[in-house]
């Protein structure tokens, strides 16, 4: 008598909960779009909307031209050829806050300058990011017990990245910029659902 053979192909496996990004794509069926495109020797780039938008945003951060103190000298060094933030698409310092989406608070925020800095920030269109550069803009720095200096620019506007230093070297500055790019990369719903990895 022949042994009973079980046809394993007919057994449906229990549905696995999608975990990785690829499995989630398969789960939604969107992967078929990709495969179809592949069959057609497709010229279709497949991505999430978030990823595309974030990529576009972080690749052309345009800072507003504003410097408050000696850190602004360092900002010029960062923009010049040796360190060259044009590599990040940031070389266009806009003269108008209406066209900028990044503000370097580069220097001491005095009490007299504080409302102007705030107005500048409010004039910038969304989405906008702020980098506080140097000890003064982060905490007040050497002027912490002064009558005329604000103890950190985050008292008046929200700050995304703080760069310590007095003033920070251009390398530190570039590291801060890269940190901001990482932050922008992980914004939006896609990152929350694990699709932006």
């Amino acid at each position: 008598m022949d042994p009973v053979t079980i046809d394993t192909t007919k057994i449906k496996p229990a549905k696995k909960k999608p975990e990785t990004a690829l499995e989630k794509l398969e789960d939604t069926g969107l992967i078929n779009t990709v495969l179809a495109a592949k069959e057609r020797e497709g010229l279709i780039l497949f991505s999430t909307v978030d990823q595309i938008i974030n990529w576009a945003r972080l690749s052309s951060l345009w800072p507003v031209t504003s410097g408050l103190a000696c850190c602004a000298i360092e900002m010029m060094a960062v923009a010049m050829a040796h360190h060259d933030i044009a590599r990040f698409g940031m070389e266009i310092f806009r003269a108008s806050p209406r066209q900028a989406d990044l503000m370097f608070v580069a220097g001491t925020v005095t009490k007299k300058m504080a409302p102007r800095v705030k107005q500048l920030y409010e004039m910038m269109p969304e989405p906008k990011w702020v980098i506080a550069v140097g000890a003064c803009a982060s905490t007040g720095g050497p002027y912490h017990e002064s009558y005329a200096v604000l103890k950190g620019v985050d008292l008046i506007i929200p700050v995304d990245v703080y760069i310590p230093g007095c003033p920070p070297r251009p390398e530190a500055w570039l590291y801060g910029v890269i940190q901001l790019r990482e932050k922008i990369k992980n914004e939006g719903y896609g990152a929350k659902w694990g699709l932006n990895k």
Partner: protein
Amino acid sequence: MNAAEELKRLLPNAVVSTGIQINKPLAVIRKEELLKVAEDVKEMGFDHLSVITGIDYTDRFEVVYNFFSYGKKQNLVLKVILGHDNPEIDSLTTFWKGADWLERETYDLVGIRFTGHPNLTRILLPEGWIGHPLRKDYDMKTEQFVMLGEDGEDVVSTDGSKLLRRK
């Protein structure tokens, strides 16, 4: 003979004492005789008034004038001692035009009034600021904020709720 001793020879009643302050000849002079001394100092060739400083010693104020002569390449320091209550001194704007802003600065930060000054208003801090910050009795506890008025002018207030972020 240095410039301070020469000044003492010219005006023995006005100069209280002479000495040296950081390699510069120093003359401590009487408050009432300042304009007379200034006239002589100008005639001695000190054509540049480089700095006016006010110092609070808690029991007295001192006003320090630093002069320089481009012709003689010499320095001269004048010092005037004032009482702590209501410090007031004559303005030197009639002799040196540059004294204008220097005196305004000293008035702004130390609170010494210069009589005869054409426009004795604050120069660094906005109008309405409470107190003179370089005084020893300046109140550091009440924080003052500057906000923009309707025409873009500075408005000083101790209430920073319009400027600061809500936490």
